[in-house]
């Protein structure tokens, strides 16, 4: 792509060659080409976002640029010269640094020990902790974050671990920093703090490649945006010429005007779930709320506010005390099975860790929770299981290469659909979904929103926990906000705005980056 390097990001225009460029790169695995003739040029001081659905080729492109993979065709250029990376370490030595999506830190080491892991500073034979602590503190200050380098990583919130990970990546000399979905597990306020860090890097002339699913955030940070679809380059545009809706349209290849389905305005039904004075020791205290049939109730709050733990208390997954009743009948707390039998299902935010058996096939996963339905004379009826899998693949649009594949080989969106199918086999009346679209591409998001709306329209009661406020506002009838283990607010109707939710969630009335960052700590 021979586009002129014009951008409004402040870096000097076009005279010098791009810091980093991909020229017509392609990558094939066996006979399958997953990336075809993609070009991308990155200038110093530019934030260049790459967006696309899962499978669009973002990861592959990033791996080519960071030396994890070698292109089958085309070339990577640094300062206009073609280079061949021997591996990620080689790319890193040339100043190209990748910040991984997953947190890859040793929890029982300190922040400084993690930052210098594998490249410890030494004095003679001894590790020089004092120097490492000092340098780590300086590096963290440079990122504008206030973290004690001597703190154990296991004591930090996820958001702060992410910042440590960034500090670690930036501890080597860097000219290009690649962020792979850095905000996937961050709340809006934590995201804002991260974006501040990225702006600081940009001001220092670092070139940034930013991969994300979250379009509003891309619009907020990017100078230019490259859209990939099905392994091909669809467009590279200046960010201010693209609205999030247009981005979505380019990504999906069709009109995405209506991401959120029409909210049913049917009168609320009878009370399905009533929670009275429920406490989950250490996480949530004195929570009371009701949920009606046909209602979609949202739970908003910062990470660590206790939303997930509260629901785990309601569903018997965590010790809790208080009263929970389903359609007026009290249920015993502390038993997952009893809560399931009462008609409650809970889909964990941690799909890979708590939702699906990644090493088992789709059939085993699908029927695990409702295995009783597939017993004939006490034995599992495999044919019935197979039939149910066929039905689920159709009904939930699960895109599986082979029916025998493992759940871990599915993409995030398809894993979520499989998890939905699995829990729906229990024929629940109350469906609780935690972070329904985390790490899921926009096309699948839309499908999942429609599915949630359909559940409510059928008279089921639905609870959605989400850190994406837009999502809650888009699909819920009513939103409860939690802060530090307590229910602090309820918004509905016209009052359902991000500002209103943030005020409740943080207890402060303005989005003040650093202050709220500290408030986000557990």
């Amino acid at each position, binding site marked *: 792509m021979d586009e002129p390097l014009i951008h409004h990001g402040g870096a000097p225009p076009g005279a010098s060659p791009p810091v980093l460029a991909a020229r017509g790169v392609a990558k094939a695995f066996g006979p399958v080409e997953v990336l075809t003739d993609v070009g991308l040029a990155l200038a110093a001081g530019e934030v260049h976002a790459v967006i696309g659905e*899962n499978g669009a080729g973002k990861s592959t492109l990033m791996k080519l640029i960071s030396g994890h993979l070698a292109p089958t065709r085309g070339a990577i250029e640094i300062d206009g010269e073609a280079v061949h990376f021997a591996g990620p370490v080689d790319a890193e030595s040339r100043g190209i640094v990748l910040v991984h999506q997953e947190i890859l830190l040793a929890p029982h080491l300190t922040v400084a020990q993690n930052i210098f892991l594998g490249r410890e500073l030494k004095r003679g034979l001894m590790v020089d902790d004092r120097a490492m602590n000092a340098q780590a503190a300086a590096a963290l200050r440079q990122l504008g974050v206030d973290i004690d380098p001597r703190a154990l990583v296991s004591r930090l919130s996820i958001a702060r671990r992410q910042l440590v990970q960034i500090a670690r990546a930036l501890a080597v000399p860097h000219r290009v920093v690649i962020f792979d979905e850095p905000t996937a597990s961050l709340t809006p306020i934590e995201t804002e703090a991260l974006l501040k860090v990225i702006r600081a890097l940009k001001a220092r002339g670092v070139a940034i490649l930013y991969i994300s699913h979250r379009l509003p955030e891309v619009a907020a940070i990017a100078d230019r945006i490259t859209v990939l679809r099905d392994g091909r380059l669809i467009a590279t545009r200046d960010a201010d010429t693209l609205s999030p809706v247009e981005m979505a349209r380019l990504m999906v290849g069709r009109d995405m005007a209506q991401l959120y389905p029409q909210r049913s305005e049917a009168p609320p039904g009878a009370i399905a779930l009533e929670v009275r004075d429920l406490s989950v020791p250490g996480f949530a205290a004195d929570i009371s709320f009701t949920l009606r049939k046909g209602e979609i109730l949202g739970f908003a709050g910062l990470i660590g506010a206790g939303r997930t733990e509260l629901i785990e208390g309601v569903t018997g997954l965590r010790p809790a005390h208080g009263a929970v009743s389903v359609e007026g009948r009290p249920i015993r707390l502390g038993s997952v099975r009893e809560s399931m039998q009462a008609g409650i299902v809970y889909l964990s935010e941690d799909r890979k860790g708590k*939702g699906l058996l*990644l*090493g088992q096939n789709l059939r*085993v996963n699908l029927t*695990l929770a409702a295995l009783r339905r597939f017993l004939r004379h006490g034995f599992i009826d495999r044919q019935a299981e197979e039939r149910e899998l066929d039905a689920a693949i159709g009904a939930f649009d699960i*895109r599986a290469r082979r029916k025998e594949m493992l759940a871990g080989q*599915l*993409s*995030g969106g398809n894993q979520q659909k499989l998890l939905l199918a699995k829990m729906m086999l229990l024929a629940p009346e109350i469906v609780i979904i935690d972070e329904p679209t985390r790490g899921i591409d926009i096309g699948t998001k839309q499908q999942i929103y429609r599915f949630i709306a359909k559940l409510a329209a059928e008279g089921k009661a639905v609870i959605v926990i989400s850190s994406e406020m837009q999502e809650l506002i888009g699909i819920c009838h009513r939103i409860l906000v939690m802060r530090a283990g307590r229910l602090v607010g309820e918004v509905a109707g016209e009052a359902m705005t991000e500002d209103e939710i943030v005020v409740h969630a943080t207890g402060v009335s303005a989005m003040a980056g650093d202050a709220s960052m500290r408030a986000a700590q557990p």
Partner: protein
Amino acid sequence: MTDEARPLDLDKDGGRSGLARFFGEIDMAAVAPFIALAALFLLGALLNPNFLTTNNLMNVLTRSSFIAIIAVGATFVISAGGLDLSVGSSAALVAGIMILFLNGGGLDGGTLLIGAAMGVAILVGGLAGLANGAVTVLGRIEPFIVTLGTMAIFRSVTTWLADGGSIAVKSPDVRGLLRPIYTGTVFGLPVPVLIMAVVGLVGAFILYRTAFGRHVIAVGSNEDVARYSGVHVGRVRALTYVIQGVCVAIAVIVYVPRLGAATATTGLLWELQAITAVVIGGTALRGGVGRIWGTICGAFMLEVVGNIMVLSSLVSEYLIGAVQGVIIVIAMLVQKSLMRRS
């Protein structure tokens, strides 16, 4: 970010040839132990013509039955992500108590006594397993440590019961009644081999066809996912140890007629052999995969190796342990490379 998010036709298979597709669908990890066994047969036949005689093979199969029966139980424990190091010691304890019961006489010393002694054995074995399971589950302690402890306890109690020596079946009549359990044949098949086959069949049925078996695999794959799916994780885990205990007892019932005595060294290192059989049979030590027939094949392989060494005198038979050790390491390497391929 995976690359299969495109709609794909389930009936097509990306242009792979029919043959490649056929082999692709065979689970190599499941077949590997049987291929290895076939290779051993070939080796044995080449080294000594007597190896492939029915007589020799039946002999080997009979001798492998104790470990095979115990290893079927171990397959449950290991597939559920647990481990039981105490099987050898509990075999000694069960044998000791069973013989003491037989020596206590009563019940006219006839077949009724033998039957009751078997019942006692199963009960003691089951209780020993329950103890392992209960401490592991309720105390939330690593099974490695729990069963290391019970291994010492069972062994030591047996030594104490035997007063440092051996507990032997006293009555010659009882001994006579017991003997056919080891030496007898039904339709030409030795009784221990039949018992092993029945244990294998029942085990395979439980593991592959019942909800409990599916739950064992689920717990071994990921305990959290099982819990979030409404599986009683603790109960499933504890039951696998009870199954292990009962399997040990069945093995002891076949073993006591063979030697007629229990000593402080009865069942020594059986836990290693059982775990080896399970692992070379294709069951994953980290849990989530269980292969009953692979386990029985593994137990058989261990005995075949010993047999070939005795028949061929290529390697001193004192090195049997070393060769078995090499086999387990090779089996793990093969498993690993198969896993990487898939």
